[in-house]
């Protein structure tokens, strides 16, 4: 089996011959090629180089093309602030100035989408069937927060209809982005929605659960696989994550792996995680990271499990620590 087949097999909820491994290299790719994050995320050429080096260094089964949750918001008119060692942040929320009815679903020409799509085409061609590429898109909740700012949170209680409209729009944006990746041959779509850890199971069902459906249905039409990435302590919504129409979900160290594995298996859902980022890969020692990875594998081993970091790898993530995990995956 090629690396790509190993991952796709797990994403079909099978048990491949070894544990699949997907390091979420985002701005860490910039670090690997000695560039700043801002320059990297604006250049198809640098993204291409960063992902190629990540493939050489970390022997992965799959890699994200870009990990930047601000691409869609930027294309929709939100103002960004750039950083050298992080993805950019949204500092201007477009719905403060423009009504929702005036926003248009982004096209392949807007913002940095052309950059990302150029990198996608080159990487698909380069990697063919060696490893899988993941098209990451900003989830509807997190995109809504970018567009509206944090007043979206109180409006979930005070003005649910308005929020529902924003969700509706954002889920169409997700679908449009997914299609751009899928038609270029990307087989795995990951919807990244970190905000989902901050709401109750009831609110999750009300606003979030079905907002992924337009995207997941499209992914199925293309015979692709879909994942939902959450972040933060989403323990209370784990049962809801199992109801989401994606093939599975990915989570960080704030969720207990044993619990997530148990729930996921009940519903035959794929689950990916959850190597600790800050205390592990960024600042931990090699031995700590081997232990963290071994613990994850021990608990996760079986159908539908993918070993992955909790979230986007920090820019300065230790290459040595990463390689310790790589060794474990390929030899242990």
């Amino acid at each position: 089996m090629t690396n790509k087949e190993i991952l796709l097999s797990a994403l079909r909820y099978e048990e491949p011959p070894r544990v699949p491994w997907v390091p979420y290299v985002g701005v860490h790719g910039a670090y690997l090629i000695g560039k700043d994050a801002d320059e990297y995320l604006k250049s198809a050429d640098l993204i291409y180089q960063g992902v190629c080096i990540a493939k050489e260094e970390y022997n992965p089964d799959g890699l994200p093309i870009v990990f930047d949750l601000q691409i869609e918001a930027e294309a929709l008119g939100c103002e960004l602030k750039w950083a050298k060692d992080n993805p950019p942040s949204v500092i201007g929320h477009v719905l403060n100035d423009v009504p929702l009815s005036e926003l248009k679903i982004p096209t392949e020409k807007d913002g940095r989408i052309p950059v990302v799509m150029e990198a996608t085409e080159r990487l698909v061609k380069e990697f063919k069937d060696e490893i899988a590429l993941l098209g990451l898109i900003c989830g509807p909740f997190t995109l809504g927060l970018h567009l509206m700012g944090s007043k979206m949170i109180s409006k979930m209680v005070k003005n649910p209809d308005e929020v529902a409209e924003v969700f509706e729009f954002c889920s169409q944006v997700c679908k449009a982005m997914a299609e751009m990746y899928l038609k270029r041959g990307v087989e795995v779509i990951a919807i990244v929605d970190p905000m989902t850890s901050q709401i109750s199971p009831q609110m999750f069902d009300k606003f979030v659960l079905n907002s992924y459906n337009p995207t997941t249905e499209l992914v199925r039409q293309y015979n692709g696989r879909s994942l939902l990435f959450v972040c933060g302590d989403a323990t209370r919504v784990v049962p809801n994550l199992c109801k989401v129409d994606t093939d599975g979900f990915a989570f960080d160290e704030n969720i207990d792996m044993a619990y997530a594995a148990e729930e996921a298996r009940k519903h035959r859902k794929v689950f990916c995680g959850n190597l600790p980022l800050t205390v592990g890969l960024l600042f931990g020692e090699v031995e700590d990271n081997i232990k963290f990875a071994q613990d994850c594998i021990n608990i996760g081993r079986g159908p539908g499990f993918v070993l992955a970091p909790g979230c986007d790898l920090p820019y300065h993530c230790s290459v040595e620590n990463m390689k310790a995990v790589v060794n474990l995956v390929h030899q242990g």
Partner: protein
Amino acid sequence: MKEALLEKLSNFIAEGDAEEALKVVEEALAAGIPPLEILDKGGTRGMDIVNERYDNGEAFLPELVVAGDAMTEVVQKIFSQMDEAETKANKIGTVVIGQAEGDVHDIGKNIVAALLAVNGFEVHDLGIDVPVKKFVEKAEEVGANIIACSTLLTTSMPYLEDVVHLLTDMGKRDKYFYIVGGGPVTTGFAEQMKADGWGRTAFDAVELCKRLVKNGTPGTKLEIVDSQPSN
């Protein structure tokens, strides 16, 4: 009747129902209950209720935020009933707060700011991604006694320390209480940079500021308020 009214108020606040809460405040004022008692036994109690629910996982971020909003309206209403002298006499302190440079997370910081404001502090919120210099400049401008800095990003933690350095360099370290908080900020880190206070939650931040203005001396020791020490 008084007890019943105050209980009603606390429940409406905990539910985040500002409209009903304000009606009860009117009723309570008309019934001659002193404004500060309404605030303390009705309002603050309401926030305690939602805090407990949040800790138990029964309430989540949106519930916490709307309760905070309702409380803000109640406080404004009550202060508008008091004359200036009374309001001043009840002001506990002035806080300049902001999210550290490079960091745009603002949900937690907003809650801290809102809770401080409803608990008798005058709050100046500098927003997100605030340059180190700005904290001190604003504190000087408004005559604050507390500077509060929040971050959720490990990469912004050095800026927290820079605020202390700047204060020291300017010879103003003994003029302000400096408090820090947010995900990656540990008590150890706060201790090492010689902050005056650390709190885990927004409620802890309120207790912390109260303690500092009551008994503390800036630049002497770290005060810790931690409502969930096991975490």
